[in-house]
């Protein structure tokens, strides 16, 4: 009997070690960014394509001028409420002392500089597809933004989801950098990069499974609004029949074909998309039109 208990204990220990090994916070090799030069101007485009300001500015911040990434917006979910942290270049409360490699580990692997898992409310399961060149440029741009000393607030997450170690299991199951769709032309490839990687459109427009994972079988087919009220529309050709030209105009001005205007979180997205090159807006529209029609 005693031997059995010892054996079970050893087996449990082995299992935990295996879990820990498979799910430890991943990082890039220390020379991953070697040879890349940073261009802050290109980084500004990456910043808007990735929509960083939409979540990391203060609640109801004005959209004029350089964005102040002081954090504070809350994001309700079935697991609790996440509060976006300060990612301004403040060295105490923001990310002012982060290297470009720190930023790359956060964006591509959801790993903090001190080796902790981030919650996937930070959409690294989309950003994992971002190129290291883009992240290098983004880092240079973010360091030009105004620093702000507002402390980040803790998330309001209940047990057992407040155990960050468990996120390793989530990442093991759901985090990868595979493309979700095929892209036949350079324009569709650019559109795919903007939608599936930087734009992280699927984080809201795709329904989630029981573990909060994006359900790839219903890619961009629409989902309930996480606030609990209303829904986020599907944007595959089956649900959204706007001509490409109308999509492009919506991305530029926020006007729908009926001249209603974007509202809610999508209004943030339009603010970002309107700052991109016209070619990028056209690429996103081309991507959406090329999606399988769905159910």
């Amino acid at each position, binding site marked *: 009997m005693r031997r059995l208990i010892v054996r079970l204990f050893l087996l449990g220990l082995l299992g935990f070690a295996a879990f820990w090994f498979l799910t430890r916070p991943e990082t890039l090799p220390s020379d991953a960014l070697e040879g890349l030069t940073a261009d802050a101007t290109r980084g500004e485009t990456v910043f808007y394509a990735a929509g960083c300001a939409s979540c990391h500015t203060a609640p109801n911040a004005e959209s004029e001028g350089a964005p102040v990434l002081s954090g504070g917006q809350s994001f309700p979910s079935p697991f609790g409420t996440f509060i976006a942290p300060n990612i301004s270049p403040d060295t105490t409360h923001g990310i002012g002392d982060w290297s470009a490699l720190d930023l790359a580990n956060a964006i591509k692997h959801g790993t903090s500089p001190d080796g902790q898992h981030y919650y996937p409310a930070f959409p690294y399961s989309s950003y994992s597809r971002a190129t290291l060149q883009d992240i290098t440029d983004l880092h240079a741009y973010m360091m030009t933004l105004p620093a702000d000393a507002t402390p980040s607030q803790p998330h309001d997450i209940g047990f057992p989801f407040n155990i960050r170690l468990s996120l390793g299991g989530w990442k093991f199951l759901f985090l990868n950098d595979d493309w979700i769709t095929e892209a036949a032309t350079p324009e569709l490839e650019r559109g795919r990069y903007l939608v599936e990687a930087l734009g992280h459109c699927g984080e809201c427009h795709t329904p989630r499974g029981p573990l909060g994972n994006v359900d790839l079988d219903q890619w961009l087919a629409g989902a309930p609004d996480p606030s609990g009220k209303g829904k986020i529309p599907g944007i595959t050709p089956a649900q959204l029949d706007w001509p490409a030209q109308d999509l492009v*105009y919506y991305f530029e001005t*926020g006007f729908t074909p009926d001249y*209603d205007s974007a509202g809610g979180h999508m209004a943030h997205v339009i603010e970002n998309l309107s700052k991109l090159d016209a070619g990028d807006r056209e690429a996103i529209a081309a991507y959406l039109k090329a999606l399988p029609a769905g159910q």
Partner: protein
Amino acid sequence: MKRRLKTLATATTLALLAGAAFADGHVNAAIKARQAQMQLYAFNIGQLGAMAKGEMDYDAAVASAAANNLLTLTKMDQSAMWPGGSDSMSVDGTRAKPDMWDNFPDVMAKGKALGDAAMAMQAAAGGGLDSLRGAMGALGGSCSSCHKPYREPES
């Protein structure tokens, strides 16, 4: 005495019901009116947008007429269209968040921003297609600046 009390009670009940019905009708009428206002914005912006998108040939007179209408609409006093109790938590049929009533000065500032964008459009609309196109973005931005915090998602 008892009968008079009964009559009084009935009359009071009826009066209260009528009052509620009036309040309801009043709120519904206000919601209809402001949605009609939005429709009129959209129709006139639609004229400008169709030219901006190239779906309709540019015509300075048509563009100016639409921009004039829009500016006139932004000058209407809407205060009676937004009575207390006409928010999305209190009644069905509206997506106006209760936050609007808690942040009145901000709502007014956003209304003024729409007025400014409409004025810029009025100055731009008759001055050629590029000039019209250039004023559309700011107009859309002013609509969204209010729809962003104060409108519920579509259900």
